[in-house]
């Protein structure tokens, strides 16, 4: 659905996106993550035909972004990271305008607007002024706007940035709904919990270069090479750490305030042996749990944090 081949964008001396290759299949929900200034927005804007690349090509829904921008725009819903709202306008008028801008015939607009309002939970606000909406509602209205011409591909740039936790949760629920509609999603974010459990694929970008991409499970296995064990001992935690490093199935051990994080390399299903060994060695184990590698860990491990402040 999205095919990026060697995409490059330079602003003067700065290379924002450097030879990026990425393929997104139909129905995929891709978490496009990286620190601020990594080139996420630049990539998304090039895919939305708003920015001309210096080199490389990109095809969205089978159309080239440079050669057939109209065809691409007709099939893409784009939500920018920062956006303004027109004042003195009602919610339905706002959506009607964008539907008209996408040449949706007049007779079809009321039905479509009703649908997207229902999906974004803004139905009761249909006749309210856009000004009166809260930040979270505006974000949802912007999402409704990107859906109003029924696009196949959604390019969402930081869809939940600057929202309070509740509003962020609402946006996440909405994105989950969109995944069910079998749209192809490319969601950029630097806030990871936002995308956890939502996306089936992941692409990590840093300093304009793709660090890694693929299915979430594949990458977590590839990066971690094992499971993370969380061990809690009542006392002698330093000694427990030293003991754990002597076990062949444990790769690395880190200790924070008597909580021990150990990476388990041994046979799957045999983690209990670590617990048995600890108990037999006389350690008072208070807690023992295993943790799947999450998106955040993948992100932290794969990026070097170079552009984190940029």
């Amino acid at each position, binding site marked *: 659905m999205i095919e990026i081949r060697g995409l490059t964008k330079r602003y003067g001396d700065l290379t924002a996106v450097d030879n990026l290759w990425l393929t997104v299949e139909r129905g995929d929900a891709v978490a496009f993550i990286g620190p601020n200034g990594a080139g996420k927005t630049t990539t998304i804007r090039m895919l*939305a*035909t*708003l*920015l*001309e690349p210096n080199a490389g090509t990109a095809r969205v829904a089978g159309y080239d972004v440079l050669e057939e921008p*109209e065809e691409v*725009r*007709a099939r*893409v819903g*784009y939500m*920018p990271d*920062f*956006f*303004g*709202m*027109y*004042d*003195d*306008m009602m919610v339905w*008028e706002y959506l009607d*305008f*964008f539907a*008209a*801008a*996408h*040449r949706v*015939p*007049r*007779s079809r607009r009321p039905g479509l607007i009703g649908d997207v309002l229902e999906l974004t939970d803004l139905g009761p606000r249909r006749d309210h002024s856009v000004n009166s909406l809260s930040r979270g509602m505006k974000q949802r209205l*912007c999402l409704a*706007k990107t859906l109003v011409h029924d696009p196949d591909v959604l390019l969402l740039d930081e869809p939940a940035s600057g929202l309070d936790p509740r509003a962020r949760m609402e946006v996440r629920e909405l994105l989950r709904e969109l995944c069910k509609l079998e749209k192809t999603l490319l969601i950029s974010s630097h806030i990871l919990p936002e995308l956890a459990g939502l996306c089936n694929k992941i692409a990590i970008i840093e300093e304009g270069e793709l660090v890694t991409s693929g299915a979430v499970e594949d990458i977590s296995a590839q990066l971690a090479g094992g499971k993370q064990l969380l061990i809690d001992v009542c006392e002698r935690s330093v000694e427990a750490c030293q003991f754990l490093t002597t076990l062949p199935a444990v790769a690395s051990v880190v200790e924070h305030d008597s909580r021990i994080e150990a990476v388990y390399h041994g046979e799957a299903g045999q983690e209990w042996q670590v617990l048995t060994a600890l108990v037999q060695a006389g350690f008072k184990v208070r807690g023992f749990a295993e943790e799947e590698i999450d998106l955040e860990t993948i992100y932290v491990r794969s990026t070097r944090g170079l552009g984190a402040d940029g």
Partner: protein
Amino acid sequence: MVEALDRALHATLGFNPCVTLHELRLRMRVGRAFLLLFLYVLVASGAMLLPVGFELAAQHAYSARMMRDLGRTALHWLVYTQITLIFLALPAYAASTIAAEREKQTLEMLRATLLSPWDVVTGKLLVVLAFGVVLLATTVPLAAWCLMLGGVSPTEVLRAYLIMAATAAWVSALGVLLSATCQRSLTAIVATYGTLIGVAVATALSAYVIFAWMSVVSGHTRTQMGPTAAVVLVGIPVVATAWLGALLARWVVQRVPALRGRWAGRTVLVVAFLVLLVIVAARAGPLIVKMSNAGSGTLLLVNPYLAAASMVEETVPRSLIDSATPPGTTTPARDLQGYVCSILLWLYLTVAATLWVLAANIYARRERT
């Protein structure tokens, strides 16, 4: 019905009117628009009625001739005030259209839709023009009152309003052009007012300089414009018209898939330009002869501030035109005023159209990098 109109507009002109409708919704229904209209009529009628009131209060007896003079004075003030108000109100309105969207970060989303640069720029320009037409229309009853007093003919009133509408058109197009160029609306507004002041000062100064130069050369204080100035004055709109016509011809031809190539487009442009230039120049020939007979003071009429007022102005241009009517020739002054009106209309509308085309091109280029 409306849907069929949408489809027809898109099929024939490739134009999507949603930007215009959207802007009309945003701008015209708010209280500000009505307040602005009210103030406009208030200032225009005040500026027109006050001098008339003073004149009436100073007189003890009234005659038909005096009423006719009053009618002319009133219309004169009405037109001057309206030109001033148009120069004050429309540039800010036009210059804030595109730049304000850029500033408010709404333009990005607009660009991601199927709206073409033409749709956006034309849509915005049409709204500003609509506002200008509404402003002018509100004062038509005041002009009718001047007509009732006598002293001015309906033709003069019509000419004055046509020139004002054409002025509104090019001022709006200039504002939209600078709005498409500038990043911030404040910059666009300042640039538009700056350009307008520059144009007003430059045209007035150059007219005076040419006038003085002609006086020195000829040794007379009052002289005719002469063929050179007339050729320049009529020539600019002639070339501009041919150029715009050629652009239009290319646009039409490029709808034909077989002729869409780069070289075909250029060839059409050049051929159409040359053909149109010959046709329009041939039509403009007699006008050049008539204009060269006019007083050199007529040059002052290219000053946008004086143009509309000169259509009803009794003193400056008429006396110059009269004085320039050579003995033995039969060019009546009023007739010349008609020619001046048509040249100015021609000039302003071609300028407006050029600025409009430029705005769409600049917008398209700017938004792709």
